[in-house]
């Protein structure tokens, strides 16, 4: 029994390295069927806070409003016609799991805000999801620092329903819960209200390293 306890403690301290090894092994033998069932394949654990994964409405629009000069109502096609940003970054969950090298395509949040014309009193974004529950927020400064994107492609394909399609946020250098799924509303507000997960115990400081990266991103 003590040996089981010891193994458990060792696993907690060094498990992340073993985990990386197992992910590599499973990938190298192309055990995709198996890897999707066994823990350690380095895949997403795909959360939803409502009754299942919500389906996008047929007439999906992304609305940008609040403290802006020109409120926007964008279809997926409208969004895709804007200048695109490509990113390949790790997706890090606050609870520990990580998916490395995820490819994203989307429109920079800051660019989208400029497009709508930010009023001087605006300081933050408030995001809403068409699941009706999930909310998130970022300050204008955080949006610039992270280079956050409003993403419509992930893992080399249109974002699937489980992963928050058709449109979700991706915030580099911040924990995964910031990357709100099923994004349908972006509102410019005077201060960042805590989002769904922050209200449910996740830290308001979502920087993976605890603080913004040293050099601001260009």
């Amino acid at each position: 029994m003590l040996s089981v306890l010891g193994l458990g403690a060792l696993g907690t301290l060094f498990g992340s390295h073993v985990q990386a090894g197992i992910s590599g092994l499973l990938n190298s033998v192309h055990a995709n069927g198996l890897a999707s069932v066994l823990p350690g394949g380095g895949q997403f654990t795909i959360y939803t806070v409502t009754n299942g994964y919500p389906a996008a409405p047929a007439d999906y629009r992304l609305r940008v409003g609040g403290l802006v000069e020109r409120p926007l109502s964008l279809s997926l096609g409208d969004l895709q016609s804007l200048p695109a940003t490509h990113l390949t970054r790790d997706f890090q969950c606050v609870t520990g799991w990580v998916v490395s090298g995820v490819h994203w395509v989307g429109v920079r949040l800051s660019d989208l805000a400029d497009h709508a014309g930010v009023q001087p009193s605006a300081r933050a974004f408030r995001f809403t999801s068409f699941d009706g529950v999930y909310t998130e927020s970022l300050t204008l400064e955080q949006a610039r620092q992270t280079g956050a994107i409003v993403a419509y492609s992930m893992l080399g394909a249109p974002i699937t329903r489980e992963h928050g399609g058709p449109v979700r946020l991706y915030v580099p250098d911040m924990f995964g819960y910031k990357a709100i799924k099923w994004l349908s509303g972006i509102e410019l507000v005077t201060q960042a209200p805590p989002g769904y997960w922050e209200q449910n115990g996740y830290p308001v400081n979502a920087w993976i390293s605890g603080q913004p990266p040293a050099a601001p991103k260009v």
Partner: protein
Amino acid sequence: MSATQVSTDRAPESSSRGLVLRFDGVERAVHWLNASLFLILVGTGAALYFTPLIALVGRRRLVEEIHLYAGLALPLPVLLGLAGRWGRALRRDIGRFNRWSEADLEWLHGLVDTASGRRRSAVRPALGKFNPGQKLNAAFVAGGGLVMLGTGSLLRWYEPFPLSWRAGATFVHNWLAVLFVLVIVGHISLALADREALRSMFGGRVSRGWAARHAPAWLEEPADRP
């Protein structure tokens, strides 16, 4: 005391119809409470992890809460079952789990020899109330359960811990869960293969014949003093 008094864990002399008490009411209650909590933990755990099940169940916060409280409650039946006067049979059985006899080692050797084809039939050393497989299972469940409790707590109250520990705890918690399911599937299969042993987890008793076949040294033990 009547002739059918069953407050001790073994009373062969006083048993009626050649039955021996294998598990008293407290032990059976602890077992079934554990089993229920375990089922809840496996069900909710799966509904937090597998995409198709998440799609079916959703409601992550609620499922997390149920999983958390079922996990925190898991040690309680055993701890309550051990306490006080009513815990005597369980305490005695846990003592038995922790003692290894020559016969146990012989049984394990026999198992290895049979599995590797070196011997045709299994040896039948005079085992006590629990065979080595049951003893190993008990050690695994106790140790593994505490590890699940520890890693689960770390994952719930993760903020003081570095990210690599959280990743490690996720790794241990998930893989150990897989191992637990395998071990419990084995446990249930073995129980279904021996209906008399299974019935004793409901009614408490086995026949003297069963005890003589599976646990002869148990029958030789001095009677538990009241």
